[in-house]
């Protein structure tokens, strides 16, 4: 029997995380870990998993940062690196923002397959991190059909 696929699902607290939790049924049968910037979201992830009939995932806290916060960003890099080394995910999936982008890039470096789902909040153009993530994502998705292009991102539906 092959071992279950190791999936790291990561998103910033707030709307990004709300969207990530709505994907829960996709990870059925996987060895799932969830990461976000607020420790209190562990319970939200557990409840979403339970509603989807999945066991409560292990939760990891990562520092929230954006590209204008170099010190915090350094801590995010440290948190995400440690997670990559200890968990060694087969798949990294994120709905953004900066910590998810970092996880996607680092996941690629260690040979994981990567999924970027651009936030449904970006209805007119892809987010900046979404545009930057594209070339490094094995599955690069927008949640708006009119933003789909031949060379990516693709549209496969939304979190609603």
């Amino acid at each position: 029997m092959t071992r279950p696929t190791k999936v790291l699902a990561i998103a910033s607290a707030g709307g990004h995380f709300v969207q990530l939790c709505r994907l829960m049924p996709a990870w059925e049968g996987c060895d799932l870990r969830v990461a976000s910037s607020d420790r209190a979201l562990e319970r939200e992830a557990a409840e979403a998993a339970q509603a989807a009939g999945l066991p409560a995932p292990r939760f990891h806290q990562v520092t929230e940062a954006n590209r204008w916060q170099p010190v915090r960003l350094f801590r995010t890099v440290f948190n995400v690196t440690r997670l990559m080394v200890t968990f060694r995910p087969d798949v990294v999936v994120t709905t953004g923002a900066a910590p998810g982008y970092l996880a996607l890039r680092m996941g690629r470096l260690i040979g994981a397959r990567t999924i970027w789902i651009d936030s449904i909040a970006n209805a007119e153009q892809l987010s900046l991190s979404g545009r930057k993530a594209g070339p490094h994502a094995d599955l690069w998705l927008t949640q708006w059909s009119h933003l789909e292009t031949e060379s990516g991102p693709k549209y496969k539906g939304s979190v609603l």
Partner: protein
Amino acid sequence: MIFLTIGTHEPFDRLIRAVDQWCARSGRGSDILGQITDRATYQPEHFRAVAALDPQTYRKTCEEASLIISHAGMGSIITAMTYGKPIVVLPRRGHLNETRNDHQHATAERFGGRRGVYVALTEDDLPNVLDEVLANADASPTETTPQDALLSPFADPNLIAALRDFIQQK
């Protein structure tokens, strides 16, 4: 109870001030709980406000609210749609440095047509939108509070299927 929430990350004084002024006029302040972040420089005089709520309290507050007032953030809109609560949103604007760009304006335009989602494009529009939604809620609660159109807890099955397919390809 009316729940004002401005999102997890950034302050949004323009919305807090507009709601405060509306409270001064309407006398609704005692019904309102505001979540205004720890970086709000405007402190409301007419309603109770906290910087943040833990996720469970946030959810419970949304569940108990009869109306949600919010920035046009997808977390707030999805939560309101999940619980079938009417939500009034004021989009953050890029040129006011409330967000990096005008994506919330686009969100407001895309979601403004949906049942239960009401948009005030500017702070000047907000009092009228609030008065109208509350008047409609009193007249016809089921129309304003779309309990029969609750959002499912999970994503579009097509998206879930695409992700499952991706996981299975090795």
